[in-house]
């Protein structure tokens, strides 16, 4: 059987590929653009490495990045004594990986990737690249 691709089908395939490559649209089972990066740690085991902290500061200083970069000490709670909602997914992901961990998430709190025990600026920047 001869496979025929008309111009409309071709444009559609290229368009979907472009969207997926740029994290522009979430389809079921995929993740969206990076909006949050969190270094989750337990200070009795280790503080935040300075290069990692510096990278998080630099990400926040770049207002055009659209990414919120923070640290989260695992015992931190909100005013009600609960894990802050904005960190629930990151904390779960980090605990599954083992602390400390850098967790990268999209706007819906879906984990894009987890980097175990990062120590350098490059590891943070590569994680959001």
């Amino acid at each position, binding site marked *: 059987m001869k496979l025929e691709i008309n111009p409309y089908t071709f444009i559609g395939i290229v368009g979907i590929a472009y969207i997926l490559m740029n994290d522009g649209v979430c389809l079921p089972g995929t993740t969206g653009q990076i909006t949050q990066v969190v270094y989750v740690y337990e200070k009795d085991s280790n503080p935040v490495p300075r290069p990692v*902290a510096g990278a998080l500061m630099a990400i*926040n*200083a770049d207002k055009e990045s659209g990414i919120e970069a923070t640290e989260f*000490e695992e015992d931190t709670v*909100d*005013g009600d004594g609960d894990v802050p909602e904005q960190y629930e997914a990151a904390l779960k992901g980090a605990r599954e990986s083992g602390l400390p961990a850098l967790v990268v998430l999209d706007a819906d709190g879906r984990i894009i990737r987890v980097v175990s025990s990062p120590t350098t600026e490059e590891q943070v920047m590569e994680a959001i690249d």
Partner: protein
Amino acid sequence: MDKRDSTNLVIPDRSLIDVEYDSNTGYPSHLAARDTPENLEMMGARDFPDSLWIDPKDWKDAARDNDKYKLWAEDIRNRFTMQAPTHECTSHALAQCFEGAWNQQRKGKGDPVCVSQISIYAEANPGQWGGAGCQQVLGIALRRGFLPEPIWGQEDKFWHTLHGTAGKGNDNNSSGRWTAVRNFPEGWQETAMLLRPLEVINPRSIEQMVCLLLHGRLIGVGRSGHSIPYNKVAWEGGGSDPMKGLHAPYPDSYNVIRYDSTRMMRSAVGGSYCIWSTTTPDDWDDPGELL
């Protein structure tokens, strides 16, 4: 190398070092006597964790890293406060320590929270004049939290606010009349619970204080009748002795950066505290839980 980094401190005016006030700023000796490491421990403060120890021989390298990455608490300080002529110094120092820990968790000074000093001091000293203890104001904040100030749009982010100080204040520190706790806005406790210190560390030596400063936190201290927040360390002069030339800069609650020498820092250890973490909102963009 930048000659003005933290290992090459230049203090422009020697009168800024080891400042002691003739007038009462709010930390009299009879209240200072109650500020001990033992009393802070009873309030729930924890001992210095071994994981945060930095060998003194590595202090200057850590300081240079902090310069490079802008990790000092001073780098993410949003404002001065201005207490004159009140006796609110302990609450002004406490507010700086809280705001610094908030920003350090946030990893930056964008969208900060500014807390009201009088929201604590009014309970610590209902008589307004005479001051308060460092641990007394810290204990109030741990138990029920601060109110935010009505500046920088915070009145639109929280249900309740209260001006910062009954003193002069400044462009970034709102001023108003003395306000007793009974005159706080109705229901204020709900908002204050959102702005509490969580984990407090109890430094027992000048070395532990330096380590905590190198980790980007502030140290609240009271010494020589005045309470201040150390937010950095820096060395005036070179040399391999990490104690030589060491100074702790601080944003004094009189719109000015001043410096304590190691002599004064040692005298301040007993009543010192470090707020490591604070309550954290479910959404940084909605710290008052309005949505």
